[in-house]
């Protein structure tokens, strides 16, 4: 078994264990409140019928580990239980909303990679003036959270100029895209600044390394040195951090969704929390944690494939 396979198996095992433990935390957190029936009923008034219904639905007379196991195996098979607030199966709530969140995150990722990595490359290669301009812009960008950018965009581009819609997700491909532009920008700004810094920092570290000097001295064209040595060697580090950032977007998306009235899983999570709808919150949390952990692991894997030396120490240490 080579190093990479062993690393993969080890990672997979660790990933499954982390997910299992996280699911236990998410499920058993309700025990901290002392009254699971009130928590499960959410905003609904706990009439004797409802209490009986909840007892039956959640098998509250069974031992807790058995309930947990049924919840988990159900969730894996796509049975997410029932919401007592929405009076419907959680699956029917989550499925259509997930598509909207996914589209928003994808558009945001495109913005982050194009403008974040792009401006990072410019800052590292186009001289002091550009470097300083990008540094100033990213300093400001890193202090601009999604909710601030969102209200600025709503004020300027939706209200004053009227270029973009303020609310909702639209119908059809182009209308949907048009509705997602402002939310995606609001979500992307802070991370564009961050990825720009990371890219610049990783590239500068490579530009000052001996093998790059050697390549230049040997007369290899600048463009080729940059592609084959500088960018290639910097990319695992950039990817690892971009991966973590993208993994976090699915949760952070809630803020943009609420600000722009998009019906994604983020806004579903927030509404469910506000109405104390525990079954919905548990499933959406489990979903977000799974996405977060899997994407983080995927980013590590891609880094390892580009730069196998990072398996020992380096990016994975």
């Amino acid at each position, binding site marked *: 078994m080579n190093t990479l396979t062993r690393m993969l198996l080890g990672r997979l095992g*660790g990933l499954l264990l*982390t997910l299992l*433990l*996280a699911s236990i*935390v*998410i499920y058993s*957190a*309700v025990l*901290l*409140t002392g009254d699971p029936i009130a*928590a499960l009923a959410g905003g609904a008034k706990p009439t004797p019928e409802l209490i009986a219904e909840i007892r039956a639905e959640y098998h509250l007379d069974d031992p807790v580990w058995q309930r947990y196991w049924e919840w988990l195996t159900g969730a894996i098979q796509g049975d997410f239980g029932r919401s007592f607030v929405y009076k419907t199966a959680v699956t029917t709530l989550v499925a259509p909303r997930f598509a909207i969140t996914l589209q928003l995150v994808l558009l945001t990722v495109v913005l982050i990679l194009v403008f974040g990595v792009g401006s990072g490359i410019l800052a590292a290669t186009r001289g002091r003036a550009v470097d300083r301009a990008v*540094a*100033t812009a990213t*300093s*400001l960008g890193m*202090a*601009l*959270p*999604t*909710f*601030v950018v969102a*209200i*600025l965009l*709503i*004020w300027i581009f939706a*209200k004053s100029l009227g270029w973009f819609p*303020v609310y909702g997700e639209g119908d059809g491909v182009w209308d949907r895209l048009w509705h997602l532009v402002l939310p995606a920008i609001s979500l992307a700004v802070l991370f564009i600044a*961050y990825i720009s*810094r*990371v890219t*610049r*920092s*990783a590239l500068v*570290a490579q530009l000052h390394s001996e093998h790059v000097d050697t390549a230049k001295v040997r007369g290899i064209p600048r463009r080729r040195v940059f592609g084959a040595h500088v960018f290639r060697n910097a990319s695992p580090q950039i990817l*690892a*951090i971009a991966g973590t950032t993208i993994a*976090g977007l699915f*949760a*952070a998306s*809630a*803020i943009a969704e*609420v*600000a722009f009235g998009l019906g994604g899983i983020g806004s579903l*999570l*927030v509404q*469910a*929390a*506000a109405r*104390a*709808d*525990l079954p919905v*919150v*548990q499933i959406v*949390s489990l979903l*977000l*944690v799974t996405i977060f*952990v899997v994407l983080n692991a995927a980013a590590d894997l891609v880094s390892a494939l580009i730069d196998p030396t990072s398996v020992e*120490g*380096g*990016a994975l240490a």
Partner: protein
Amino acid sequence: MSVAQIAQGAVPAGARRAAKRDWTFVVALAVLAVVVIVAVAGPWLAPYDPYELYVGPVNSAPSAAHLFGADDLGRDILSRVLVGAGASVFAPVVVVLLSTLLGVGLALAAAWFGGWVSGGIARLVDVIFAIPGLVIAVLAVTLFGKGLVAPVVALAIAYVPVVGRLTRTAASRELGKPYIAALRVQGVSSLAICFRHLVPAMIPIVAAQMAVGFGYAMLDLAAISFLGLGQQPPAPDWGSMISSGQASILAGAPEQSIFPAILVVVTVLAVGIVGARVTVWAEEKER
């Protein structure tokens, strides 16, 4: 260079350079001083009762009587911003203090006991790290109700992995230094080494981490209030004011959202500059 180093070096790169220029640091400190004074004395500085309805014209622009204008219910925005500063500033302070206490405690326990205790703590920290902070906060709000208490405790727990890992690394590095070995050879007890030498040596690094953490905590808590899960109306706080002002923006009166948003951004920028300075100071001490 490891990913962690790049991530760490990347965050304050520009701010690090800015921190070297003294006037930026002085301005940032002055801004923070004003913010702290406002957070403490806000209720006494406020020209109007922040809860009183229709003290000014609904959704009005800044005027001599209402310097920041009046909101959708005719309340004085300046008064609400001043009174709201308390919750907006002190809640993140509590998050940072709690997470530092928990993180440093766990890191010291792991370094002290080693073995399975250390392994168990590492696993626990991994699991917390796997759940995004916002999700922990939302889960806490679902179980314990809306308001600032549940999100503050939840975020403190969410920040433990970062604080813990940093402290653990710094502690191991410090313990590897020759002077610690010299102390051990001289027969100084482990407890004395820990509290007389290790803990004082780590204060600069922990302080730098706390300054950086405050900025994140402020943004996260403002976001949670923006989502309607933190500070509950009518009590003011910058995050919830930004969100409740959204309807007024569409009515052509952005003041209710814009002023608290500016304050959040300015405070976070100032904290970032001061934090970068403290980090530089901690790194210089390290050498």
